[in-house]
């Protein structure tokens, strides 16, 4: 399997960069694409695992292709479409497009072309090849919960910390962290951040061994404070980025890829989304900023407020062990089956299958392979060797 982790230099040397897209601009595109997947996913009641898988596909895709070649919202839809199938929460392509339509401005939706469904379907083949069918993606969520179970301390504070960390994990999808570090490390870093901000100090934990200085030494090795701080800053930077008022728009789009050498000419010709600011940034802090040494001021981000996962994944008092969310593979979400898993309504593409039995039903009789005649009493299948 390919290695899906990159260092910072590689992240500055992407196909988009080579295509004359500035680093900050690319980061914005990534953020917008990820946010859009999250928004579309939650609007369609897709779980956090499906959404996160889609986002990771999205980030990986643009390690091989340029934002100039592939408009981000189409790619985003395609990633969510594929992630839905992979995570056993399939959504119909046309429904995803419908939802996308409702979330995007006309100009942005225009990148889907004349036949949006075909656009997404074609892209799926490119996506699959790009990610080498490496479909299985792990996310920090399951680690977050696993680690939280081991920490001792005030239950209410612990729960608050875990919820905050959960939100950070959600928001981390808008960064390229998933292209830099394993989910275990991201989980540790963002729990560390949440711990600081919620003033939950972990003094003791289950399975503590003398040689362990910090609780996470149990789970990950050689994680330096510098690394943790770096990861935290990448997430916190999301909240300090200014809202682009002069919306500098989509990739400097060009009518056709052949002309990619003259970027500036096309922007107006294309007329893409110069009208409005992009996806609104998180609102100004709604919670008084807490000042804590070592980490920047934390305006609690009201972004990605679909609180569903942690709210439901956690028993209120946090006395019972929390329900572990289904892991990335296949297991259906708890509770009644989601609507899409129930019998397909008439006319939907996922139709039941009518198929003949595997073996031809007509059974010839013969001394060697005579099967039991169906409607008669059982007889030997094959003459016992004498």
């Amino acid at each position, binding site marked *: 399997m*390919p290695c899906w982790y990159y260092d910072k230099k590689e992240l500055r040397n992407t196909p988009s960069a080579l295509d004359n897209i500035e680093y900050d601009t690319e980061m914005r595109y990534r953020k917008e694409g990820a946010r859009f997947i999250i928004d579309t996913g939650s609007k369609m009641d897709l779980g956090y695992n499906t959404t996160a898988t889609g986002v990771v596909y999205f980030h990986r895709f643009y390690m*091989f*292709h340029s934002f100039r070649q*592939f408009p981000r919202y189409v790619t985003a839809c395609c990633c969510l479409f*594929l992630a839905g*199938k*992979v995570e*056993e929460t*399939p959504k119909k*392509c046309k429904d995803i497009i419908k939802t996308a339509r409702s979330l995007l401005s006309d*100009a942005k939706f225009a*990148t889907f*072309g004349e*036949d949006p469904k*075909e*656009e*997404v*379907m*074609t892209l799926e*083949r*490119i996506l*699959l*090849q790009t990610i*080498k*069918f*490496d*479909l*299985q993606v792990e996310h920090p969520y399951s680690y977050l919960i696993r680690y939280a179970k081991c920490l001792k301390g005030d239950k209410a504070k612990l729960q608050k910390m875990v919820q905050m960390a959960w939100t950070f994990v959600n928001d981390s999808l808008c960064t390229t962290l998933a292209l830099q570090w394993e989910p275990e490390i991201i989980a540790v870093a963002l729990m560390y951040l949440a711990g600081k901000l919620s003033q939950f100090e972990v003094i003791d934990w289950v399975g503590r061994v003398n040689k362990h200085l910090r609780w996470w030494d149990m789970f990950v090795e050689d994680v330096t404070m510098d690394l943790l701080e770096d990861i935290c800053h990448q997430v916190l930077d999301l909240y300090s980025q200014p809202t682009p008022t002069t919306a500098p728009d989509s990739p400097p789009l060009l009518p056709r*890829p052949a002309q990619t050498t003259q970027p500036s000419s096309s922007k107006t010709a294309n007329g*893409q989304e110069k009208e409005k600011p992009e996806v609104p940034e998180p609102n100004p802090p709604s919670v008084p900023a807490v000042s804590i040494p070592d980490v920047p001021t934390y305006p609690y981000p009201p972004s990605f407020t679909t609180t569903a996962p942690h709210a439901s994944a956690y028993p209120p008092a946090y006395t019972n062990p929390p329900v572990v969310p*289904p892991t990335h*593979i*296949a*297991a*259906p979400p708890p509770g009644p089956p989601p609507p899409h*898993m129930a019998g*397909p309504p008439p006319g939907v*593409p996922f139709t*039941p*299958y009518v198929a*003949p*039995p*595997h*073996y*031809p*039903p007509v*059974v*010839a009789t013969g001394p*060697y*392979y*005579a*099967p*039991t005649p*169906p409607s008669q009493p*059982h007889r*030997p*299948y*094959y003459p*016992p*060797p004498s």
Partner: protein
Amino acid sequence: MQPREKTHSHSHPVMTLKEKEKYIENFKFPFCDDSAKYEKVAKIGQGTFGEVFKAKEKANSKKLVAMKKVLMDNEKEGFPITALREIRILQRLKHENVVNLIEICHKRASQQNKCLSTFYLIFEFCEHDLAGLLSNINVKFNLGEIKKVMQQLLNGLYYIHSNKILHRDMKAANVLITKNGVLKLADFGLARAFSANKNGQPNRFTNRVVTLWYRPPELLLGERNYGPPVDLWGAGCIMAEMWTRSPIMQGNTEQQQLTLISQLCGSITPAVWPGVENLELYKQMELPQQQKRKVKDRLKPYMKDAYACDLLDKLLVLDPSKRADADTALNHDFFWTDPMPCDLGKMLAQHSQSMFEFLAPPRRSRTHHTMANQRPTTSAMQDSGYQDRVF
């Protein structure tokens, strides 16, 4: 006209579909090789979602592979979810007794296939499948060899079940055997992951799985919260087939299959299977009463070996909760008494021809029991492609 013009310029995609296809054609995907690196030799089967070919690597003609084509023609929802499942599951499973997925290749778009690229799953090649071997009367398994087959089969099941995967399509045709006698479970097109229902929520899987003749009673009665025992039932059916050489319960309908099961394994009642009365179809299906269990009696004339009969009796148990699991079965005396399981390589070395069910003549026709190379008719191909699919 004008407004339309305007929207058009607005909506111009970055690349048109055609340009996109061209882009793929020219883009060298670092991880996804061109299927042209293999050369097809023959069609050897029909899988859940497409044809299967024997092929050899052009660069190294000694390297044989099986290429399973992913059919995309009728997919309104893009790359089939069944294929995605099989890929994801096989990437996770690496075991001597599970077929090895080498890679996934794509065939470049061309005029011929109307600009649609096709995908192939590339597997290591196995010379035979069990159904093909059993349909050839010249292939004779002695007791030690049968033990080896069953031991490997149960080993494979033990492995996949420990990895929380259900195969859901156990049948002789999906059990591959290499010329060296190594058995591989194949066709994970219906497989899925399962989890012990730890949330207290029962699973709600589709029960439209498993080829009818190998389908266990709980599925026939509409159970949706099932688990590994469904595969062990199939293992039992296959085990008996090692001696009978033909599937032991060949129902034409689900009702008939239940009747055949009752006639062999005894009546399905709450007495032998507590809770069966709560299954969805328990009241709707006609379940023959007063049937005695005759598994041992009926199979003894074929199997002779008392341990074999006893193990089979523990696999073909109506109540899934009492059915032997793979581990229990592997610990059965059958595998630990003389003759001990013995290598199949020697016996298979006597046969130079590949034996696949797909290539074999109809199994019950007595006139064609030599291995014929002739292709089966189209209708036979369609029949062997039978599958209930999964949603």
